[in-house]
């Protein structure tokens, strides 16, 4: 497995900070969006899009590319920021998010936005669709990997486990799920609204390999993604323990910030914290 030097780790961490700043600016300007779950997944998204995934932004339909599905589609600001900074479309497009004529929809739309692999926004679809893509690749002998980013609250829905059972039946080792385990959903803490624990055991019982990491530790994320690639007999889930609203003190671990945009004073305060690294 590759060794990741300090400078690369620092670069990915800086990318994550950019994604956070973009996401908050986009949500603030539009006065709509989902800050909490965008901030929690920034390191995961940065590690995937700026290091691990094999992508060619100049050719979004490159057959050998890795497939990424944002199953928690409400974190669209984070995905749009990553795709723009990766070069799929101009950064300026981010400022037009939500305009009627803009290709950036509230939730990702594969037909409108370059680099969006699959339309999402209704929770739960990523695993089963990703399993279909992974099976398709295997049937044709293609080497691409399929990566699905889910929320933990999302795993309350049965379709996730239908997909998990299906992926296990076909031993889809080319499918990797990452769950952004921030323990907060719209109505409150996940462990209160509908407990998932023992979560790792649930995935193991569905015949998935499980890797548990700190989802804000870039080195752990990259090494977990590599480790998943070494598992050849079953799909892997990376349970990334994160903090909802990470990086903005007053948003952290607070369900209020699941889907509410900051006002100007709050936005400026958030910027100071993110820019100052506080």
């Amino acid at each position: 497995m590759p060794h990741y030097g300090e400078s690369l780790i620092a670069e990915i961490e800086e990318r994550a900070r950019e994604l956070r700043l973009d996401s908050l600016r986009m949500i603030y300007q539009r006065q709509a969006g989902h800050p909490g779950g965008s901030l929690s997944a920034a390191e995961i998204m940065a590690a995937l899009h700026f290091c691990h995934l094999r992508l060619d932004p100049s050719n979004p339909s490159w057959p050998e590319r890795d497939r990424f599905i944002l199953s928690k589609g409400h974190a669209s600001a984070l995905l749009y920021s990553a795709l723009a900074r990766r070069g799929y479309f101009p950064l300026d497009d981010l400022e037009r998010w939500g305009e009627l004529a803009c290709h950036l929809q509230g939730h990702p739309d594969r037909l409108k936005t370059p680099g969006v692999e699959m339309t999402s926004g209704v929770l739960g679809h990523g695993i089963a669709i990703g399993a279909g893509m992974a099976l398709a690749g295997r049937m044709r002998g293609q080497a691409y990997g399929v990566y699905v980013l889910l929320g933990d609250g999302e795993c309350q829905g049965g379709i996730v486990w239908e997909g998990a059972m299906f992926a296990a039946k076909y031993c889809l080792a080319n499918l990797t799920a990452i769950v952004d385990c921030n323990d907060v959903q719209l109505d409150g803490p996940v462990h209160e609204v509908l407990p998932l624990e023992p979560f790792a055991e649930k995935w193991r019982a569905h015949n998935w390999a499980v890797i548990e990491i700190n989802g804000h530790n870039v080195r752990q994320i990259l090494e977990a993604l590599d480790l998943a690639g070494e598992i050849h007999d079953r799909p892997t889930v990376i349970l990334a323990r994160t903090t909802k609203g990470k990086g903005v003190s007053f948003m952290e671990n607070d369900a209020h910030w699941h889907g509410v945009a900051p006002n100007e004073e709050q936005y400026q305060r958030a910027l100071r914290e993110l820019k100052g690294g506080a």
Partner: protein
Amino acid sequence: MANEMPMRQGYGLALADYGAADDRVVVLDADTSSSTLSCYFGERFPQRFINVGIAEPCMVDVAVGLALEGWVPFVNGFAALVALRALEQIRTCVGYGRANVKIAAGYAGLSDYKDGPTHHSITDIAILRAIPAMTVIVAADAAEAAAWVPLVAEYDGPVYLRLSRAETIAVHQPGQSLAIGRGIVRRAGADVTLVSAGAMVGRSLLAAAELAREGIDARVLELHTIKPLDRDLLCQAAEETGALVTAEEHSVVGGLGGAVAEALCDARPAPLERVGIQDTFTRTAPDPDSLMDAYGLAVSDIVAAAKRALRRKEARA
């Protein structure tokens, strides 16, 4: 009534045959393959046959993933379950996401007579045709179901193909012209038009024969494609006969009758009587024909509706 092979058998055999001609086709089923007869494909092409278990939503999502990678998936199941349990998958991922998934909805209408209302599919046309980008086709008999397989596979876009478990009256000749969105004049006639789809095409032809004995010349249109509806053929019939009846193995809410009513009121209003299940849940029965008769789908119901439509036409004259 002149029966041929059950529609599901015509479909299942055709799907297996088509699998040899087109290696992009993959077939999925939700543990109903020995009922839908997608098992024929599975026996010949086990590498391209996927049984997802009793999980229709998962079946549709997996098919979406396969479709995005260039395969042409046919998902198979009971219409009542696929159209309702997997509806959100169909709306969001197949329709809005525009995945090239073919939904072969078996056991539609009342054809699963013995299992009762849980497995009667009387709202699926209304639901599916409301989804943008969806093409909705109702097969009339075994030969037609077979003929639809290559057409549906080669069409680029989502399709809901409604199939029956039952033996329906044979109306389609193998080799006869068939095209998505283009209706078929099954009988010429000038006084009234009987518009039908599925198992009701054969019954409409019997009704037309009965009307002929009473001196009424009924045209019979098969509008197999509920969406996009053949508005030209329909409006021409409205223009030339001035009175219409729709007949469908479905609720009168939102199905073929609803689609025809919408088209006529947009373009060529005319008296219209709708034969179908009258917005009620149905019952278990010993056979499909008596069940259809019991819920207002008998040949005599079509005849009576034609006479009502004619009276309304004459009242307008």
